[in-house]
């Protein structure tokens, strides 16, 4: 369903009328086709990336309301799932606890301490019996934008 910010209406003589789009309009049909293609190509990808791609479509398009509206209808038909081997909250908590013992965890390490970040992630991964990648990606897998 369209949310209020996406619905278009016109007020005349104290009467509010919804503005529907003409489904036969070539322009809108082409927009819809582009969107459907976009959604299909993002199957299994994070929601955040799909949103970025949709925004990209509206950069020079003053019909952005319609683009977002059509996209919303498509999103309603999609399912986004949290994909994590372990509860993301559990992963985070262990990471932060361990990290707190080892600060500073820095990007330009001075000699001899250049593996801390990796150490923390891999230690937690081992603890939980998951791969390093699962640990890194799973850390915030519960956020909407990282759902797939």
């Amino acid at each position, binding site marked *: 369903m369209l949310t209020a910010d996406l619905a278009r209406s016109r007020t005349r003589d104290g009467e509010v009328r919804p503005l529907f789009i003409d489904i036969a309009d070539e322009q809108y049909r082409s927009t819809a086709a582009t969107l459907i293609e976009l959604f299909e190509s993002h199957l299994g990808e994070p929601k955040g990336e799909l949103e970025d791609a949709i925004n990209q479509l*509206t*950069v*020079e*398009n*003053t019909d*952005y309301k319609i683009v977002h509206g059509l996209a919303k209808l498509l999103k309603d038909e999609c399912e986004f799932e949290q994909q994590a081997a372990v509860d993301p*909250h559990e992963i*985070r908590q262990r*990471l*932060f*606890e*361990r*990290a*707190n013992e080892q*600060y*500073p*965890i*820095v*990007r*330009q390490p001075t000699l001899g301490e250049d593996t801390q*970040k990796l150490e*923390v*992630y891999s230690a937690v991964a081992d603890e939980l019996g998951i791969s390093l990648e699962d640990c*890194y990606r799973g*850390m*915030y897998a519960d*956020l*909407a934008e990282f759902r797939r």
Partner: protein
Amino acid sequence: MRLEFDDGTLLLHDAPEAIPVAEWDDRVGEYRAQAYRYRSILEWAGQWSETDGQATLQDGYSHDVEDAARNYPDVALTPALQIEPRDYQQAALQAWRTHNRQGSVILPTGSGKTFLGLQVIADAGVSTLVVTPTIDLMNQWHATLTNAFGDQLSEKVGVLGGGSHEIAALTVTTYDSAYRYIDEYGDRFGLLITDETHHLAAETYLQIPEMTIAPYRLGLTATYERADGRQELLEDRMGPVVYEEAVDDLAGEFLSEYETIQMSVELTSEERAEYDDEYQLYRDYVDSHDFDLWKEQGYAEFLKRTSYDPQGRRALIAKQRAERIARTASKKLDTLDNLLKRHHDDRVIVFTANNDFAYDISREFILPCITHQTDTDERTEILDRFRSGEYSMLATSQVLDEGIDVPAANVGVILSGSASKRQYAQRLGRILRPTDDRQPARLYEIITTDTMETYVSQRRRDGVSSSADS
């Protein structure tokens, strides 16, 4: 005349025609007034009496009034912990009392606004509704009220919001819940306290003070200013600003000394090229259309054009992109990196203005992170652990901007922010809490040179000057 509370309004049965602030309601054939006029109507009728005083006679004669509107009890309370109020708290209380127990008090974050609230509740001696912007603040007030008055109350402190729906003589709630239910409960409280009261001026929230009859009102905030200039409405509903204490007046006396250190970073050549392109696109569009962007009107006109002019739309996106590049400049992370190295034994809070950047930092430096997407339980857990020392660092986007009782940190890093004085003052306030006397608290501001951010930072500092500037 008979006063009756009716769905957030006052119904005035058999009111004389001379009745002020009321309007004839054809549907019921009676006069009707907004609920917040309760006190002024009683004053007009010569029927208003202070808890400790005489009835006031407004125009020399009195009208008989049957007050069926008031549905709130007197409550005699004394704060359990008798702490001597600080001079400015005493002065603020006094100022509020002499302004007919109405109005707002501006105090910096960390200077004991809640404590003042307790004094005011004890002084007013009536049932009280405390409205806060967030669930966290609501929980905090609940704890403070329970500690101070719990033993003297026959029932627990009520909670309206966050899944609870209990109304008691002392009740805490959020703006959102209050807005939803105030038409039902607007007659149940004699004192209305609004925390972070500058939020109240929003159109929807303004209904909270409008639909309550509370004759006593207190607004609390660290920063009263609003960009939209709606303070006047606030004053009409809550009373004027009766007391103000600026950040500088208190720094060094009750709040720990702090120093501000500004660090600039350059954009990488790649970022610079993109920034310049986008910014130019925006600038060209604006320049070719004669908007006076320094005026609110000019900016509104620009925004309006972006809705039908593709080039304008592109210009708006260009502006947003340029801002984003400056905000998230990759070298900021290098600088942050150095700061975390320098302060690895300290208690550090890193502020960012957007969620993505906060999460980037959280993953990169493995810092606990709070954004508006963080659920309440986890937020509480992280804050508790930060308080207890289990965590020593924290990254956050704007959600902590309100006066949550964030455990004291001695180092703050602002990575990005918007040009609002309010935000800056409150962010400052959070690390201004006295920690220990090892060293002054430090606030680092990392900004990107030769971008719009440079001006933003200047504007920000014009709002609050730090002790390090002198």
